């Protein structure tokens, strides 16, 4: 028991006990658009063919940056995964289908640099939160949708081997009155109904989709937890390995504090220990451990 406390105290004092990580910051994955850059985190351990995890940020498709996931990417890189955080073109500068095309292009670019960065292109997971959770879900079920095919140099790419969607919209047709969603789609549901369908991951559910993990707070009033529940149920019905971690009391940008019952602002559903434990177990089952 004393030894366990000593290990804990040492780990906390050291701020972590993972591998050293080298960072490639601001790597352009599509030279045509200034916004299309990624940060890549490489474990410095000489290993090759490591599993990789790519993070896509949220922000209602109109805000946010790859910096949202710097801590998450660094932590997994210290654990031995090659990780990347991605920026993409935002609304209103770019609308349908730019965001999903960029997500596909970033995934293709990461795989195209497998040798350079020591990753296995057949073991790549994607993680997204909120709008990022929507984009990674589309990567999982709609990568062959003609409208979403990237025309960047890295070219089209198969779906990722695993998808982790945190509080992600799975059926955007419930937000027809929200301006930012209409701007992302590029028109109202009356004007371009096919786009609203196409941008709803739940309409693309298929038996050959990769495994999914959904992480969602039950008190999320921005993206209701029913979005993840329904998508999980649809995938399971199609025979796909799909799991849901529902966090009681968590909101979209708030979490219930550890031992105190306090509510913490700025804590998202992929932050708590429960989420990390589910995430690492899911990664081990799908893309393997480093």
């Amino acid at each position, binding site marked *: 028991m004393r030894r366990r406390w000593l290990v804990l105290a040492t780990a906390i004092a050291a701020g972590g006990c993972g591998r050293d990580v080298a960072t490639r910051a601001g790597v352009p994955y599509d030279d045509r658009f200034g916004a299309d850059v990624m940060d890549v985190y490489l474990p410095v351990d000489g290993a090759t063919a490591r599993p990789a995890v790519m993070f896509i940020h949220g922000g209602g498709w109109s805000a946010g940056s790859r910096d949202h996931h710097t801590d998450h990417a660094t932590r997994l890189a210290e654990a031995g995964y090659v990780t990347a955080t991605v920026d993409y073109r935002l609304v209103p500068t770019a609308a349908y289908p730019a965001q999903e095309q960029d997500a596909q292009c970033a995934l293709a670019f990461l795989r195209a640099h497998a040798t350079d960065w020591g990753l296995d292109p057949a073991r790549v997971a994607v993680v997204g939160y909120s709008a990022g959770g929507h984009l990674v879900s589309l990567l999982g079920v709609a990568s062959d949708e003609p409208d979403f095919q990237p025309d960047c140099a890295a070219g089209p790419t198969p779906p990722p081997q695993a998808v982790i969607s945190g509080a992600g919209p799975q059926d955007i047709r419930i937000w027809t009155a929200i301006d930012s969603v209409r701007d992302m789609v590029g028109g109202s549901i009356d004007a371009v109904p096919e786009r609203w369908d196409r941008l709803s991951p739940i309409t693309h559910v298929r038996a050959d989709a990769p495994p999914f993990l959904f992480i969602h707070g039950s008190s999320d009033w921005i993206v209701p937890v029913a979005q993840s529940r329904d998508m999980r149920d649809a995938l399971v019905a199609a025979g796909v390995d799909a799991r849901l971690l529902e966090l*009681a009391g968590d909101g979209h940008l708030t979490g219930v504090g550890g031992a105190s019952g306090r509510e913490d602002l700025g804590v998202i559903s992929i932050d708590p*220990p429960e989420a990390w434990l589910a995430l690492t177990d899911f990664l081990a089952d799908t893309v393997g451990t480093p």
Partner: protein
Amino acid sequence: MKPALTLALVAAHLAALAATTRADDGAALTTVSLEPRAFAAHGLAVEAERDVPAHRLSLAAALAVRSTAGGDYDSTTLGAGVELRYWLRRRAVWTHRPRGAAVGWYLAARLDLSRTALRDAMDTSLGAMTTLGTAALVGYRFAPWRGLEVRPYAGLAVRTDTGGGLPAWTRGSLGYGLALGWTF
């Protein structure tokens, strides 16, 4: 729910103890409180606070249990915390307490330690993480009726997770809460 029942019994015991401890001048010294927000996380957080009027301080000890994970998972978090409060003026609006009682504005430093274990739908253990939390808080205690306390608070919190096969991870947040309790 066994841990929650245990915690409820501990809370009742603390309350009974508190009822027997009063200062020589009859001023209430012990407060037992709950965090209603913890119920939303399928948890229970109980705190017992002892006033030390001579030093304008009070010391609180907290126990918490919650089972936050649902869907295809289940979890148990057990936690304990201590908080040292410095009472600035010991006066508060909407309060009926003897002069010098632990009411009004306070500053606090808090330390929490908790352990979270996750299981999947087959009840297979998926590991556990330990979280060390520290917080600097400011709060205000009202005592609007008899022994009732209403105590909103807010502040900055820092947490470090270890375990689960991952490197330690430290993050900060802005926290707020509301405690409801009874002073004996």
